């Protein structure tokens, strides 16, 4: 029998984030990934990606916070032409997800994009941009009830 926590630990060592500081990588199957944002300690505004100072009140006292990994799909598109720097499959869906902290997250959308609808509940996952990659990016997909 395989020890699942050990397998996951091994997987974690293999998985590389597309950039440091964008999201957490779970160390067990029970754990969910989270985007890492910043919160202004003065006015309470959240940011993603992280900001060194608050763009609303210009305070520099910022703290790192884990954002909710659920939100609502604001809107999306299916991109059918390859933009510069993108190496994944075409077409692909990208859009914006509003998380409860008040941040509109620009994100790739996973799963069957024919099933996407505006305002639907979404959850964040980690996935390679291209299948088989050991580098993972954050994506949102519809919540399956």
């Amino acid at each position, binding site marked *: 029998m395989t020890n699942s926590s050990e397998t996951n630990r091994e997987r974690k060592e293999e998985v590389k984030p597309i950039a440091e500081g964008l999201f957490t990588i779970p160390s067990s199957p029970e754990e969910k990934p989270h985007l890492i944002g910043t919160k202004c300690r003065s006015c309470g505004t959240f940011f993603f990606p992280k900001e060194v100072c608050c763009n609303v009140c210009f305070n520099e006292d910022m703290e790192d916070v884990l954002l909710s990994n659920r939100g609502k799909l604001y*809107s*999306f*598109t299916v991109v059918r*032409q390859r*933009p510069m720097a993108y190496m994944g499959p075409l077409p692909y869906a990208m859009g*914006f997800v509003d998380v409860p902290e008040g941040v*509109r997250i*620009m994100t790739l959308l996973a799963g069957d994009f024919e099933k996407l609808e505006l305002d639907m509940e979404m959850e964040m996952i980690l996935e390679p*941009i291209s299948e088989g990659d050991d580098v993972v990016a954050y994506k949102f997909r519809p919540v399956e009830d």
Partner: protein
Amino acid sequence: MREVVVLGVGMHNAGRFPGETTLDLGRTAVLEALDDSGMEFKDLQAAYFSNRDEPTASLGEFALGKVGLNGMPIVNVENASCSGSTLFWMAYNAVALGQYDIVLAAATEKSPRGLRIPVAAVGIDFQAMMALGQMGFAVMPGFAAILMRRRMKDYGETEEQCALVSVKNHKNGSLNPVAQYQKETPLEDVLNSDMICDPITLLQCCPMGEGAAAAILCTKEVAKQYKSDGIITVASAILRSAVEFRITGLTSAGLTKMTADEAYKVAGLGPKDIDVIELHDPFTTNELLHYEDLGICGEGEGGKLLSDGVTELTGDIPVNTSGGLIARGHPIGATGLYQIGELMLQLRGEADRRQVPDAEVGLGQLEGLGPIASVIILKR
């Protein structure tokens, strides 16, 4: 503040010109502006110059050096899609505030083909910025597409209404000898062209291209020494950046509305006084949004305003009579001055087959990555 006028304008055609250098294009536009002003190069007191895509320093000195040398200060400016309108704003201020009596604003551009990268929207470190590019976010029409899908749900706008922006602007472009595309494109052609980002098709995206444009601004008093007619007054020229730089996603709609409100206030005019508009239509969705920013219709009414024909050449407020960015073209640094060029023709009654009858007041609007917004109002 002194009263400022536009004395003359010059436009090289927009398009692709493999036989001409960036400097050649600029020379054509500047010579035409001087000729239109009845002025010689030596009369200029300062020049503001723009170019977005050449990887060289001080292009303005090189380009104007092909026309003349008179020792005047030449300043090179880059301000994204607002570059040309920024030059105009600088020239307006310099003349209005009495620093100079005669200022040239000129821009020349040879942009490479293909999708541009909206990197400046991502105010973060380089590694994270690259990551966002690798994730496929560097796709400008994507943002217009995302906005359009939201508008379709919120306002009941349709893909056809969105595509009609392109039909209208290509129709106008077919009447403009300066335009990059001078060909009418029926609705079905727009809808059936390659899908770029649903629901935005290829013919709903502005082309990248080449071109150059120039304008000469001076005081009303000085203008009389050169010309007696065809002098157009600058009623206001407003340039702004954001009051908040949060990545809320899609548009800086609030910014352009704020800029337009200020431009109307300074000019002592309102949306109902405007006879002709040149606005920022890099993608069809943007035009619908900017109708609302400029106050010519209410929020969510952009699609209806268009399909009711109000912004057609024959409508109450014709928009993008030049063909806009979509058909006239978007030689980035020069676009703001192409808008001025078109408005000058309209206000002088020289726009030929696309003339708006008795046009007295014209408005030019642009948005640039940053975000930046500009609104300029000219009156006869």
